[in-house]
């Protein structure tokens, strides 16, 4: 009988259907005489056992959003507005100690670089055990068993031996598996995975994504999967939110969003990716580049690069509105996409 079935660590109970509700979240960076909203009026939600993919490039604010949810932001970055509600409970007024209890056990985060996410001076086993004991009253022995079992679950061969290994003795792919094990060992209701495959090779990436899909089936947690790679998100997500320059520009169900994208940015990303996969000579591109934090256009932030730009786009900021039952869009002039 595994330690888990003995009820030592139960699946975090989430009674509400909506696991996470982010509403008009704004995160600002206070500079020397300037201030920028790196995450600007961002709203989205994640339901139970659902995978939300957040797609965006550098400067989109996707990583800061994740850090804000975890309340891991520090000067000069701060949350300036909006609300974050986890299982019906507002996270904003929580004290640091209360937030600490939630982190790791109810909401956990997996970061991009497995090379720096683990402490090099402690063995893998020690780090997992410490994590468990920080949140649950279990004996050292029980925690050890839990950790070993978790390592097995994430596909690490000879887990007992690996418990005594130091991070630098493991390959990138294995380290990422350890990090995933740490993120799931306390059965959180929500896991935030920030670019977890970016630092890995294509073949290892495929392995980690397979693993994530499998674990999700077994554990049933909700996942926010953040990536710049549409392909990664296409694999795993149920719904997708596209972010650009601090805004959410489109949200929708995965297959309909990727099959019929409405926002010109989403269309551009898809065209780019698909034409890369074809044998055509030139790649379809988005002109221009992502605006820097401090020189964002006044109205629609994508307007300078947008093939659908009309006068209105440079005059007033489009709002994120529902255009159908399962699609939200921030655009004045969407047109049909021809792949």
């Amino acid at each position, binding site marked *: 009988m595994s330690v888990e079935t003995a009820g030592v660590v139960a699946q975090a109970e989430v009674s509400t259907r909506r696991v996470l509700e982010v509403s008009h979240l704004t995160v600002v960076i206070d500079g*020397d005489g300037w201030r920028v909203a790196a995450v600007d009026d961002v709203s989205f939600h994640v339901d139970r056992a659902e995978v939300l993919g957040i797609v965006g490039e550098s400067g989109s604010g996707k990583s800061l959003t994740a850090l804000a949810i975890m309340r891991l932001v520090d000067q000069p970055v701060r949350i300036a507005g909006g609300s974050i509600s986890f299982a019906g409970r507002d996270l904003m007024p929580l004290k640091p100690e209360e937030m600490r209890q939630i982190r790791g056990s109810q909401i956990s985060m997996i970061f991009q670089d497995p090379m720096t996410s683990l402490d090099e001076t402690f063995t893998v086993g020690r780090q997992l055990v410490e994590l468990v004991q920080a949140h649950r009253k279990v004996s050292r022995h029980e925690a050890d068993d839990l950790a070993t079992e978790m390592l097995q679950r994430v596909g690490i061969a000879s887990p007992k031996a690996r418990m005594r290994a130091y991070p630098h003795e493991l390959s990138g792919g294995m380290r990422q598996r350890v990090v995933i094990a740490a993120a799931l060992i306390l059965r959180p209701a929500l896991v935030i995975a920030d670019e977890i495959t970016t630092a890995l090779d294509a073949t290892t990436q495929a392995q980690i994504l397979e693993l994530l899909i499998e674990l999700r089936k077994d554990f049933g947690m909700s996942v926010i999967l953040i990536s710049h790679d549409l392909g990664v998100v296409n694999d795993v997500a149920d719904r997708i939110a596209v972010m650009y320059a601090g805004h959410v520009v489109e949200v929708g169900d995965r297959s309909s969003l990727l099959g019929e994208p409405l926002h010109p940015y989403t269309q551009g990303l898809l065209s780019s990716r698909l034409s890369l996969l074809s044998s055509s000579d030139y790649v379809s591109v988005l002109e221009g580049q992502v605006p*820097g*934090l401090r*020189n964002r256009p006044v109205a629609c932030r994508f307007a300078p690069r947008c093939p659908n730009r009309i006068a209105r786009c440079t005059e007033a900021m489009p709002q994120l509105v529902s255009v159908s039952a399962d699609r939200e869009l921030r655009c004045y002039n969407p047109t049909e996409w021809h792949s």
Partner: protein
Amino acid sequence: MLLFVAGGLIGVVLLAFPSLHHFYLDQTLSEALKRPLSPGHLLGTDPLGRDQLARSLAGLGVSFTIGLIVTLISVVVGMVLGLLAGYFRGVADLLISAAIDVAWGFPIILLAVMLAGMIGPGFISVILAVALLNWAGFARIIRGYALVLREREFVDAARAIGVPSLRVILTHLLPNVMAPTLVMGSYYVASTIIIEAGLSFLGLGVQAPTPSLGQMLAQGRDFLRLASWEALIPAITVALAVFSFNIVGDGLRDILDPRLSRPQG
């Protein structure tokens, strides 16, 4: 802001130094050991009746001059050797690092005494003693920078283009170490001032009648009970001197640092 104030004060002292010459040399024994704030002598007088204010300023001038000259020598020598060692590695690095280790560990007082014995104590021997050893710390730090910089891709790019090594060092490494060099240089002047004060306290520095803060401190030691200000004034002056160069260093660092590590917009 403070940087400019400090810088300004230092400049004033350096300029004023030569012309104070009369004031600090004038011995009036009848006026000996006057307290500070006595008429005509803002900081009092020394045991030989010489005006302390003038002497302090002159002493400051000496400290600053020695500090700047020594630091200049240390910086130039340290930078050249540090860059060569860090960039070329191999034999050059082994030799230069060995030299750094020797200089770093060599007792300065011993060297000062030896030099004083050979060429007589004074301005030159102090400068030589400190400069011969001071460059080592600098070289070590610059060597560290060179080691890091040589791995940067833009150095690879230059080598791939075919730029010869010496030119690579001049055009790529040198500009990239200038900023930390300036900052460190200021701190080095401060520490040199302390070393000089220590040496002249021991009598190995500039000789009387040229005033030096360390020597004034030594003199004041004899009068600690009777006239404590004789020792206090030079002590505070040294502290102020060190402080002002530290401020200059801090100021430079604040100006230069943001440019060094500008965040990607």
